[in-house]
């Protein structure tokens, strides 16, 4: 089965009189990697489950390629989902887990055996056929779950926080492995994650969701540099916001607020032109590995900045942010200047 485009049109889900998803529109091009990103409870997992057929829609339409799959039961949608808990069947061996989707499609035993062995080779788990899934490590389980999804050559791969149960080192290596595999297979992929770093590294397109709505759909770079509003910016690591002063740089002259990231703000460095500066008392100094994070109490807010060496608590310091790192927001907290139309869906 070849990879296909996915189109969501006004997808709405209500559960017990509560609106979980509110009129979602989304176009996913064939072979692309899309991340659904957002805080817990924003509806991203519900959206993934709606695509897989586990959550009925109250309105709207889901199309895979040319056909509508809105009213099909999960088993007829031919999407392949990898669950957060991996959901490997404990009463089956590794080989049986991988082969079950093929068995359901009536693939003869010999052919099944061949494809299971090939998939295990590809996952670098060759010869694991007869192992019990309960004997596998977290990373190995994750690979088997992925293999079970991919073995049927699905038109659409759905990943529900597939890496969140793994420890940091394995997560990093699996991240690039997963991305490589997806690229080599060219399979349309949608991944749910609450980890912005993961989304920025892996996705072609990020769908940022909040309270059941899509707030912004953009490429990682655009999303990072031009978040649609202050809420999105905070979610993407813009920890600091300051009200604009007269002497501040002229970028986004209509801006009411500037946002900036802690790592872009430096402490006690020679003053340069076209920078935003604020003075305050140091209230905290924490070692972060590649420097020190300084908390600064200015008159209007608590700000965070980075320093190369520790700074004594209680002393006064000057924080400096280059103009290029400032993200301007209007009085309505929306990003300035207005985003391109095709990127601003909401």
């Amino acid at each position, binding site marked *: 089965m070849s990879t296909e485009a996915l189109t969501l049109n006004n997808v709405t889900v209500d559960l017990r009189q509560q609106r979980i998803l509110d009129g979602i529109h989304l176009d996913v091009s064939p072979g692309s990697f899309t991340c659904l990103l957002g805080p817990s409870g924003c509806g991203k997992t519900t959206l993934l489950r709606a695509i897989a057929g586990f959550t009925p829609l109250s309105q709207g339409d889901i199309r895979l390629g040319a056909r509508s799959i809105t009213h099909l*039961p999960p088993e007829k949608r031919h999407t392949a989902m990898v669950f*957060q808990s991996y959901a490997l*069947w404990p009463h089956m061996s590794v080989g049986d887990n991988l082969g079950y989707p093929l068995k359901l499609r009536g693939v003869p035993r010999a052919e099944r055996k061949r494809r299971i062995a090939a998939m295990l080779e590809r996952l670098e788990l060759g010869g694991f056929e007869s192992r019990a899934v309960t004997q596998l490590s977290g990373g190995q389980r994750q690979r088997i779950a992925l293999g079970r999804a991919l073995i049927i050559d699905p038109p659409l791969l759905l990943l529900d926080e597939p890496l969140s149960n793994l420890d940091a080192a394995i997560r990093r290596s699996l991240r690039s492995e997963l991305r490589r595999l997806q690229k080599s297979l060219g399979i349309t992929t949608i991944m749910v994650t609450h980890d912005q770093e993961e989304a920025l590294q892996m996705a072609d397109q990020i769908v940022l969701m909040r309270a059941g709505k899509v707030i912004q759909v953009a490429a990682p770079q655009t999303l990072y540099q031009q978040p649609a509003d202050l809420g999105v910016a905070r979610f993407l690591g813009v920890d600091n916001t300051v009200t604009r002063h007269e002497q501040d740089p002229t970028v986004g002259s209509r801006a009411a607020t500037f946002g900036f990231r802690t790592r872009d703000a430096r402490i006690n460095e020679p003053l340069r032109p076209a920078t935003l500066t604020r003075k305050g008392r140091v209230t905290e100094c924490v070692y972060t590995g590649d420097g020190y994070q300084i908390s600064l109490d200015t008159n209007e807010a608590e700000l965070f900045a980075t320093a190369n060496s520790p700074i004594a608590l209680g002393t006064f310091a000057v924080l400096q942010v280059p103009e290029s790192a400032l993200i301007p927001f209007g009085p309505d907290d929306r990003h300035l200047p207005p985003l391109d139309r095709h990127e601003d869906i909401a």
Partner: protein
Amino acid sequence: MTTSSSQVHSLAVPNRRLPRISLGMLLVLPALTAILLLYALPLARSLVTAFRDSSGAWTTDHVVRAFSLYGRDMLFSVGVVSVSLALIAAISIAISGYLVLGATPWAVRLLRWLYRWPLFIPFVVTGQIARSFLATNGMMNNVLVETGLMASSSAQSFLDWRGLVLTFAWKQVPFVTLLLAGAMAAVDRSHIEAARNAGANRLRCLFEIVLPQAAPSLWVGLILSLVAMLSVLSVPMMLISGNPTMMTAMMAHRITYYGDYGIANALGLFSYALTAVTAWVYLRLTLRREATA
């Protein structure tokens, strides 16, 4: 450091520990006494009695006579119990499966509420209900004749092995379903969803994903049902007139009319053996599964 502190601890302990042990014993004692007096002792006595004649000498006479006199009843009991267990298993799987995988919420709720009722009805009442339902002029035949589904001339009594099977199933299905549905509900929801996502319809999900994981509870339910069916007296007494019948009825007959505890106990021996074999098979299955897991 740790050794010295533990030594100090162990030196201080004896004074405190002794009363604690006797308190523990005291707590266990009532249960232990009850088991010994009310279960172990009568069981041992009945086993011994099965192999002793009236003068107290050891003999296999009772066992041989029990087999020659009641061989047919034993076979009948085994047959009825086997068919009942098959029926109980089939219906329990169907009900539990629907409770877990059913897609119509109100039907699932209704079924969940309905299926438990027979649990609260004693065997003797169940026997009475079955009598008035399954007899030649019983409710079942009346309904079939009234609705025109059956000619009144072809009405027949179900008060034979079929009646027993139906009654046992009616009484035991809720119990087994209660255990099985609980075990099925405990199966991780994502296992079911993963199977459906892989392309399994709900029936295949039930038999290939859910049931294999819940099977231990099904076996426990069936073994306990087997014990219940082999020990109930009221139902065969009320439903079956004449021979062959269940062994419990024959044991009661032997005791009430002849005061013959020897043969009654020899019959009981066969019941023990049957349940013991099943329990042994079950334990072997569980142990093997645990060894591979």
